[in-house]
């Protein structure tokens, strides 16, 4: 497998995630986009691991999976709380935190 090819795919996926984050205002959608971003990065890690035949990036990838899981748990619970309060999950509701 060509490293360049995998990296390109990863870059495309990353761009999709970025697009998703920057265009949406819905919490759930943004969370999914973040997952896509993380997966793009992990794909890259795995490709590098195979290309350099090293295990270290794989261990890193495992950590990232665990952290991503925890992060999405926190994100989902926050969004649930926001939904309970406002009836929607639009993040533009959360403007009270600013100055």
């Amino acid at each position, binding site marked *: 497998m060509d490293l360049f090819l995998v990296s390109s795919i990863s870059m495309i996926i990353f761009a999709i995630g970025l697009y998703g984050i*920057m265009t949406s*205002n819905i919490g759930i959608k943004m969370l999914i986009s973040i997952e896509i971003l993380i997966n793009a990065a992990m794909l890259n890690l795995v490709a590098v691991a195979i290309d350099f035949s090293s295990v270290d990036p794989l261990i890193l990838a495992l950590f990232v999976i665990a952290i991503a899981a925890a992060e999405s748990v926190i994100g989902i619970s926050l969004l649930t709380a926001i939904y309970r309060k406002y009836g929607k999950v639009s*993040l*533009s509701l*959360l*403007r009270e*935190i*600013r100055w």
Partner: protein
Amino acid sequence: MYIFAWLIFILPLISFPLALFIGRYRRNLAGIIASTMIGLSLLFSVLTYFEVQKSGIIYESFHWFSNINFGIYVDNLTLIMLLMVSFVSLMIQLFSIYYMKDDPNRHVYFAETSLFTAGMLGLVESSNLVFFFLFWELVGLCSYLLIGFWFFKPNAASAAKKAFIVTRVGDLLFLIGMAVLYTSLSGSSLLSPGQSPLSIPTIINLISTNSAGFVHAIGSTNLGIITLLFLGGVAGKSSQFPLHVWIPDAMEGPATVSALIHAATMVTAGIYLVARVFPLYEVAPSYSLITVAVLGAFTALFAGILGIVMNDIKRILAYSTISQLGYMLAAIGLSGIIGSIGVSLGMYHLIVHAMFKALLFMSAGAIMIALMDLRNVKEMGGLWRKMPVTVSLMFIGAITLAALPPTAAFFSKDAIIAGAWEYFSLSNGSIVYLLPWIFLTIGAFLTAIYTFRMFFLVALGKPRSHLAEHAHDAPLIALIPLFFLAALSLILGVFQGGFYNFLYPVYKAIDPSSVLIYSAPGIIQYIPLILALFGILITYIIYGTERWKHMDVSKRWFYKAAKEKFYLDYLFTRLIAERTIIPISGSIADVEHSYNRGVEKFGTDSLGFGSFLRKMQTGLVENYFLVIVLGMTLVFIFLIIGGAL
């Protein structure tokens, strides 16, 4: 630990809040509380006296901070002061109960006098110059409070401020002197670690064991500077020549306060300071003790001249206090040549002076009560017949002040004058060494004149005002303290030799010569007495009759100058304060103002920048992402340019 010695100054300190708060509800209790506490102080002073006689000097101290220890140091010199201060204060407190009986704020008065006495007793006992200074300031504060006790009188308010500010000038000099002493001694190898360079016993021991090493460690010039700066503090507190201007104005307070300030506390603190750190003066260059002697003697003369032209009964007494303090300081200064006996002479005069000056002030107070606060002696007259007891007591005070033979001051003051002659005859004959004797002898003459001028105007002739015609003695019970003081003024002379012997061990380590009571040769010995009698004769001729009414000296330039106090007040307020200090402090205030504005501007600028930064927190998640992406892009661009990728 000998607890009684500590209690001596702690008890009046306790009585300060007690008298204030209990006295608020029970006015009459305040005086009783204050008197009881000071009475206990007197009792403990006596107990401490016996303790010191039995087991030697008491020195106890606690660690305070760095190398400053808080402690008490009680030797024979301290004991004398303790006994005198607590006894005279007790007498004054007892008389105050009568004197202040109609004042609505008498609880405040008794609280403040207690604090005053506590400050003085603490000052006397302190083992460290820093604590000495703390109590020294406490005494200054109380004098401010008490002189301005009748603060609704504008005179009293300004007199209080004047006393505070003038003594502050001296205090600053004293403080600088302490700083010089600290810096020049603290690095020296003479001190073991933890030993404070400002501790009085340390200084005394160092000098007595190794005076040459001590002088070497500090440096002769520094010692001269330190002693002269201390002398500045003494001049402020004990009202010596240039800084004496606050004392006559301080007469605006109650008469008992004047008695307290002039007899037991405050002004004697300065004399005590010189006596306490006398070892420093002993090893300092000779000019500092010469300065002390000449300054004291000159003050004695100068205040004597001013005392003659005053008409206010209390101001006459105030100038006599300045003059007598000059005698004490001069006596200490004489020690430069005649040995440490000079200090004993000064201290003895201090004790005697405390007795008769308290007596004089309180009898003046009794007269003022009888005359509805009339203070002009020219409006009194004939009071000896109207209030025989009070004026007789005053007569005892007057003959003591004028140093006539049977009284105590005859012994103390003539010993000083004889010492001054001894000073001259033992010196190399320079005119400077003769100055103290000349000044002090003329001073004795002037003392007799102003004292008996006051006394004759008060006591003899016909009553010259309506008030004086209807004066009556105070109730005898109120005058009991005055009887004690009068008795002591008369008989204290008996203890002269014993006193010198008692005080001698304090300075023994420095000067091994034996105790000598000087008697000047032949006719010189009798000059002060002859002059005093001559002065009394003159004053009797002029003031014992109505002759003075036909004299008009108000045109003479010398009289005018003396009446204006030789323009010293003018010099201080108009020239020094208004022309010099105020412009300087004004310009300093301008500098400070612009500095403050700079600080303020920096603050407002920071606030503005902060509120600008705050705008970046939009609360819009998209914006944050945008910033993140832009940042990442920038990082990549830099990495690419840097050739890392």
